[in-house]
């Protein structure tokens, strides 16, 4: 107790001496720009914390899209699984995929990736009753959302699937498949000009 008291007195004395050392400046508001007095205060920099964080490596300009490693199937866990949610109504499909993602977070299932596949548009042509003419009835857009799961535990699987099936909304199709490289490649657009040039070079 005594030691701390003396320490406090010492610190206080020091603070007082630093304050008294510059008697010319009584009101820091009117201090000149060159004399930044507050830097010499003992509490200067008391809130700094960013220098304590580990240094991140500098980000490269454009990272090539690399495929994430497909997790291998083991005795008790499944390989990388794709839970595909598809339907015509975008809000319902998106909300259901968000629900699946939140469910995985809560149940401790690791989610690798969560992406959307290309929207496919179907034109519905209706045959007219009195004749052979077909007319356009409607455009149906099929939306696709994929939640990619990392190693799903075998004991967790039936429970998880049952919760998904019971919460499935109307008009939404659910499918769970293993992730393959072909699935990854279908997400990219083809580049016909590049392929044409490559063919020209090779000939």
């Amino acid at each position: 107790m005594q030691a701390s008291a003396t320490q406090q007195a010492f610190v206080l004395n020091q603070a007082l001496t630093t304050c008294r050392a510059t008697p010319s400046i009584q009101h820091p508001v009117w201090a000149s720009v060159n004399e930044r007095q507050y830097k010499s205060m003992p509490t200067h920099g008391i809130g700094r914390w960013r220098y304590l964080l580990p240094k991140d490596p500098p980000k490269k300009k454009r990272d090539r899209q690399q495929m994430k490693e497909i997790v291998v199937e083991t005795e008790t866990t499944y390989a990388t699984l794709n839970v595909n949610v598809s339907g015509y109504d975008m809000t319902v499909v998106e909300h259901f995929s968000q629900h699946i993602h939140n469910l995985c977070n809560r149940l401790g299932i690791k989610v690798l990736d969560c992406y959307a596949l290309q929207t496919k548009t179907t034109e519905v042509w209706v045959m007219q009753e009195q004749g052979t003419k077909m007319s356009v009835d409607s455009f149906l857009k099929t939306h696709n959302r994929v939640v990619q799961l990392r190693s799903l535990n075998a004991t967790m699987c039936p429970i998880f699937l049952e919760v998904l099936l019971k919460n499935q909304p109307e008009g939404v199709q659910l499918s769970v498949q293993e992730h393959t490289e072909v699935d990854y490649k279908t997400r990219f657009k083809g580049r016909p000009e590049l392929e044409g040039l490559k063919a020209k070079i090779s000939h």
Partner: protein
Amino acid sequence: MAAPCRRMAGRSLLQFLSSFSRTSVSNSGFRQFSGTSVCRGSRQAQYVEEIASSPWTLMAAVCLQRLPVISAECNPIEQQFRDMMIQMELEKSMLSDHELRLLDDAERIRRIQAGEYDSDEEEDRRDQEIVLAQDLEDSWEQKLKNFQPAARVSDSEGDPGSLQRRLSDSLLLLVERPVGREKLWMLPQTEWQRGETLRETAERALSSLPAASGFKATFLGNTPCGVYKYKLPRAARTESSVGTKVFFFKAVLSDAGASPTTESPESSLLWVTKSELQRYVKPAYLMKVERFLLGF
């Protein structure tokens, strides 16, 4: 505040699951449930000696569920909230193409009637004069009126043997089996035979039911979801059979097949909801089965 609570809930559930799997596997010789036959072949030699010494008869049962066909009814509060949200979204939303077309057509008709219409100004609208947006809307309304949706509540509501009852709930399959001197209601089960996985035993249990020949079920996983231990009464216990252990596997009904018209009265199948289960099933059995059934 929310984050730590969520973490805790997740952790406790995982612990429960992992401990559950340990207890179910520990007594039966550390069997591993695998879908591929390759793994099975390698472990068979290890199991033979261990299983021969176990005094428990092992059985696998299938928990077959028919999922709800239609969505559940809303509570009064839910209905009120739903109506309010629909109204709010309607008021906040922007006009769609069809509605814009309606407005333009109405405007054009008004201008024609007022005599200010100059047909040369709007060249690109010639083809749309033939079919007005209002006519389209009327034809759509007509089609909607012609559509008759099926009834939510079917006739066979109270008949426990029918598959069409309680369309908004999930139903569980029960069969009656003679156990000892009495007949008890239980989930369909058969005894495990050497050389097959427990999931195959459960599949066999389902396909061996005479009335359920047309049923197509999708099993949700290779691991059991529950276990029920039954010790034989003291008089019937011997060295080699102390009791039975029943492992439950979850499955979902995908196709009921043709409904059997010539059903024999002995083949009694029941489709019950979780709340009706207690009327048919013994309390000790019910306690174990209820744990893995989701819903009401």
